[in-house]
């Protein structure tokens, strides 16, 4: 009798969650693929951290913040005292692999359903994966590479660090394979274009000192692409001038539609970094700016590096003392390592964003600018001995915009020209997260306080080595 009561118990337990899709039976339509691709783009938002660290670690800025332990992870990177336990480095490591994992999820199921436009979708996907891998290589050197799909916990403990050259070779192959599938212009701003893929590929060549290859692809961007320099440098970074003609690849942020919280930076659709870099306003009318946490403050030496007449200094470095002189009612709180300077390119503005407003600003990050492409191409021409004239032309195109005249043209050649190009990169791109990696790449690290030989790479997060089964050697010196 007792047993009779359950005549169909096995069936009774056969239930699945209602109204939720299962990860193994997805990818049944084009929209499934499109939605999954949005998930891959999603992680671009987290690159705010790489960009902040790329400045703080360099000689451009100090960490700043509220006090000397405010975001200790960043302070340590500024001082080059960071260890393998640094939480910010772990975030970079985790978030970039999160993007790679989502891209690989699409690749795992890439043949499941066909539709028109799939080649372009897969091309965008490969670009994003390459972008994430490149960030990892810049920070950590050799990184474990997996390509074909998602992996299990067991598999995550059986993958070795892939030599940097091999990762680069894969990225070159992937990017070369997608160029023809991408258009120069997309319907939606923020989508990956042919120019973005070529520029990233050029950058990857340049990082390997493969100058002829770099020149080839970068020249295509310059000659075939729809890009030009914005005539007025001071307008490039305004929120009203996003996705402008100079923008080859731009990370999109929006703070007006979804709230943000400190509990999940990777969930935020706004630009987390902008608020961190803002001034600690106290009182008065400091319109159009918004309050911030005074991180990533430029040093006097950077300010002084701009010649008089260089129109880039003011749009690059915000001089809060000068601002207060013009607005006597405005008061501020001085943060840690106060220099009086702030990163003007990404200052937070008072705008229609949702709470937590401090980390939800809408400033897009101009990831690859046309001037960056020009300077990379100039560098490749110069260092590769491929033509100082072209190098000078590209360089002076950038300088003429900066000074508004031809009086400041560079006429040097050889290694002097290379050095001039490097200096120009610093001035043109300060505050955009490139500086530290340029310094390391070009061996110009003596000006970074605390920099020693080990600092050419960041340490692989210790916990990640442990979680991956203790099979990865740590980078030297950590």
């Amino acid at each position: 009798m007792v047993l009779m009561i359950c005549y169909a118990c096995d069936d009774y337990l056969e239930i699945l969650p209602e109204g939720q899709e299962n990860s193994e039976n997805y990818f049944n339509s084009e929209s499934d693929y499109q939605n999954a691709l949005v998930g891959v783009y999603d992680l671009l938002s987290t690159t705010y951290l790489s960009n902040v660290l790329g400045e703080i670690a360099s000689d451009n800025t100090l960490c700043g913040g509220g006090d000397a332990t405010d975001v200790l992870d960043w302070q340590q990177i500024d001082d080059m005292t960071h260890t393998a336990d640094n939480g910010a480095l772990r975030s970079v490591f985790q978030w970039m692999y999160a993007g790679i994992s989502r891209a690989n999820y699409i690749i795992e199921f890439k043949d499941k359903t066909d539709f028109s436009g799939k080649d372009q979708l897969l091309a965008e996907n490969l670009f994003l994966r390459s972008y994430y891998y490149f960030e990892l290589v810049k920070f950590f050197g050799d990184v474990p590479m997996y390509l074909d799909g998602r992996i299990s916990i067991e598999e995550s403990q059986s993958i070795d660090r892939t030599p940097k050259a091999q990762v680069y070779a894969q990225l070159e192959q992937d990017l070369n394979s997608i160029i023809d599938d991408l258009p120069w212009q997309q319907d939606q701003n923020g989508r990956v274009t042919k120019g973005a893929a070529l520029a990233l590929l050029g950058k990857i060549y340049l990082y390997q000192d493969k100058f002829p290859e770099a020149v080839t692809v970068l020249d295509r961007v310059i000659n075939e692409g729809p890009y030009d320099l914005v005539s007025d440098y001071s307008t490039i970074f305004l929120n009203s001038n996003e996705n402008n003609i100079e923008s080859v690849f731009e990370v999109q942020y929006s703070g007006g539609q979804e709230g943000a919280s400190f509990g999940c930076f990777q969930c935020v659709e706004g630009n987390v970094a902008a608020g961190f870099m803002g001034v600690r306003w106290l009182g008065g009318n400091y319109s159009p700016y918004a309050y911030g946490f005074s991180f990533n403050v430029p040093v006097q030496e950077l300010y002084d590096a701009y010649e008089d007449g260089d129109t880039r200094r003011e749009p690059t470095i915000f001089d809060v003392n000068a601002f207060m002189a013009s607005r006597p009612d405005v008061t501020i709180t001085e943060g840690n390592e106060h220099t009086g300077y702030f990163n003007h390119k990404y200052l937070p503005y008072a705008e229609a964003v949702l709470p937590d407003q401090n980390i939800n600003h809408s400033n897009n990050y101009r990831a690859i600018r046309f001037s960056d492409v020009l300077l990379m191409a100039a560098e490749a021409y110069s260092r590769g001995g491929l033509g100082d004239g072209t190098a000078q032309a590209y360089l002076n195109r950038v300088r003429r915009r900066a000074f508004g005249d031809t009086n400041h043209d560079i006429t040097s050649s050889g290694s002097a020209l290379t050095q001039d190009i490097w200096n120009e990169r610093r001035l043109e791109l300060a505050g955009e997260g490139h500086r530290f990696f340029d310094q390391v790449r070009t061996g110009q690290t003596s000006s970074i306080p605390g920099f020693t030989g080990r600092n050419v790479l960041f340490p692989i997060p210790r916990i990640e080595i442990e979680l991956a089964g203790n099979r990865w050697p740590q980078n030297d010196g950590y």
Partner: protein
Amino acid sequence: MTAKILRVLVLLISCVTFGQNVTVSGTVKENVSDQPLLGVNILIKGTNRGVTTDFDGNYTITDVPINSVLVYSYLGYVDQEVTVKNGNPINVVLVEDSEALDEVVVIGYGTQRKELVSGAFSSIEAERITQTNPGRIEDALRGNASGVQVTSNSGSPGASLNIRIRGITTNGDNSPLVIVDGVNIGTDLSIIDPNDIEKMDIIKDASTAIYGVQGANGVILITTKSGRKDRKTKFSYNSFFSFQEAENTIDLMDNYEYAAYVNEIQAADGNAIPYPNLQLLDTNTDWQDELFERAPLVSHSLSATGGSEKVTYGISASYFTQDGIIASDKSNYQRWTVKNNLGINLTEKLKLNTFLLYTNIRSQGIPEGNRGSVLYYALNASPLTAIYDGTDGTGVSRGFEYIGVEQGSEIINPFALINNTYNEGFADRFTGKVELEYDVINDLKFTSRFNFNYSDYGGRSFSPLSYYGPGKVNNNVSLDTNDPTMFDLDRNDDGTRDVYGTVSENRQHTFDFIFENFLDYKKSFGDHNFNVLLGTSIRSETYKGFFGSGPLNSGPETWDNAYLGNSNSIIQIVDGVVTSSLVNVSDGRNENRWYSLFGRLQYDYKSKYLFSAMIRRDASTKFGPNNRIGNFPSFSGGWVISNEDFFNVDLINSLKIRGSWGITGNDKIGDYRWLGLLQGTTGEATYPFDDLIVNGNAIGALANPDLKWETNYQTNVGFDISLFDRKLSLTLDYYRKKTEDLLLVPDVSALLGASAGGSSPPFVNAGTIENKGFDFSLNFDHQFTDNFSINLGYNLTTVKNKALSVNNAAGFISGGLFNLNQATSRFQTGLPIGVFYGLQTNGVFQNQAEIDAHAVQPNAQPGDLRYVDVDGDGVIEYGSSDDLTVIGNPIPDVTMGFNLNLNFYQFDFGTSLYASIGNDVARSYERFLTYSNKPDFYLNRWTGEGTSNEVPRASSLASNNQLWSSFYVEDGSYLRIQNVQLGYSIPEKFLERIGLDQFRIYAAVNNLYTFTKYRGYNPDVSNANPVASGVDLGQYPNTRTFTTGINVSF
């Protein structure tokens, strides 16, 4: 000689002849109603022969030797013995045993005589339960049962408490299973009025295996007050009224102390002194003092119990209301309950039992218990900031002073926060059962029980436009840049308002049912007594919820108008930039199912040798097809030495030794974690193209198809002894619990991609945790005279907790919160769960020479905390695990409860004490900014060589002093006078005249005083998460209550 022998033989023969047998019959009735009793056992003493009475109380027993003794026994009544002289009828009246219920233990799917129990149980009777006037049953458990620890999350109205039976067995949900009259009531224990409880039995050992995968955290079996057959209706009315106040406040600096301290910081850092003239300071706000108020608490309960020949009933209703000691108009709790037990004998063999409980809860709350709480702000706000700014309240400040941004961009005026807090919660819960008991044949009973919990709950909140001052992260509106006396209600300046307050509503319901069918068979073969149970259980839990929020933009912007129906989406596009404020609606839904088979065999031989074996087989949809089924056996045995014939110690009335071993399980994890689910297009996989957020899709929590339940192995040995005419009873148990295959969410390699928004690592079975210790309880009852009696209870529990393995590669999981983002606690291999793990301090650097002699400690100055170089590498590493070590343990070594009750003529006096020894608390309510207020022990700070070796110097640059270290760990041991109570009962002779059985009035104080060295509010501060327990974020303090009440019955 021969003649003598013959005479003896004759005598012997005649004796044998005289020892003739007779047939005895008669009727057994009970004393109060004079009604016959069915099923009374009648046994010829010293034999195993016996009969039971029939429906009319009649019995006939044949072949009874003259001069033998008949024993009449009936559950709940005092045994009676009658010597048989002849064959005349013997009619017996049995007297009810007032202690009757104590003699029976509810063991799950049945009861057992306490004497025969071989598992580890604790029981609490009604008087103990209601002694402290508890609002919730968790309060009644605290200090009243060995092996049971109760800690509070908060002293706010309606706050839940944490019950831990024999330590922390899992990193997840440690709450025990609670069964009320056979009904699994789920996780909300507030639905029961403690006045309704007749007794609580707590199963502590592996005897919970009869509940299988629900049994790992222990089981609490509650029996509510019900009627008995053939009783006139008994009414009881219990009521009390209390005033509550904060048990203590934290000593903070006043305005002069604060100003001097800030001056010292600024001077030390080389800055100008902000308060050069202390005499000019006229504001001195004591934020805590202004917040705390006296608040009432009222309880009424009325019950009626009784029964007729075929029906028994227990009906009760109660009302409980509690206001908060902070902002009582916005922080309060009301509960109604109505309960009905009804038992009907449908036929001679078929009985219907029903139980129905309705609970209605209404509550309001203020932010508490975390970084955004009213008290956190009050503890860190400057005493130089006034509460009110002198405006009329119609302006942007709403009349509240701004707290300067120098005090922290997230620290706001707590009164302004309260002013902007509007919420209400409700819950309507029905819990009930329908149960049929059928006596198939003698001693074989079939029970079919359907029980259910239906809950309808939800809430509403309104967040009006709030501005707390410049730069505050809590602002949800900006000021108009052109006119700072107005809100900027048009963010994109298109001429149309786009900023409104937010209204949120949610409505959720759950329906759980359990359908159980079981057979219970009792049989004795000679002195071998068997009881066999066999059953099945089908269980389902379903959930559905709707959630909505949006801008309140229709009608007035008031709480009374704050409903979702008055909310409309706004989307404005100006120059391609989207500004939106949308009505968001979402839902959640879920179902889990279980199917179980269970069986139990209980055996005893002459009540001397006890044995019990049980097994339950559970299948749960929490796990996938690979590992769906678990088997949970347990065994126990006992030896009642005092029932042995050879046992003859006058001092000892009973002595029993017991032992048990068994396996239980735990499946309390999220739903469908064996299956990989996508987040859906409302998840976190989003990206803004063209400034318009596009919703994508991505994997949510990662799957683990091989997931299975946690397995808990428990061994228990113990003894029960009662001495001196049962006046003194002692119970001692030793237990060892080991939980294997802990369900945890480990840190996983970044390569898995679980760090993306909306994703999370899979649950895995990875870890082992062990608890061992002693439970001891002592009870002493003595009636000195008719008018003077004493009852004294003491219990002690020790827990030694250790994580044997935490099997993720890192070997630990972090938790807890210190300052803004530092973790305090670890669940780490080889250490107790939730242990505090940080830098170890070793005094304060007195001079530069000490710094030079010490390991390299970056930025150290005289007056800074001196950290121990744990790894011995000559450098104190910050932001690394190298120099971190164990700096405290939130789990107490020993907890104790003590109860004393005295009855002296018409007066009764009671007190209960509770002590916890060896627990540490993390002081984590400080904000550490230059302009934050500080606890006043900072007045004893280091100000020069030899001034302090404990409290570091004042300096904002010395921020390494604010790293998580043993400086912030305090000893949380305490002794609390939980209750003192004095009552007076009107003598019976007066009561009879007015027709009352009892009339008692009393006065009581709860939480009279806590002896502790802890400097915060509450040394037993806790957290439902075991890896964050003992971390004091400025939780709501306990309340001290002053109570007067009455108990009436008639």
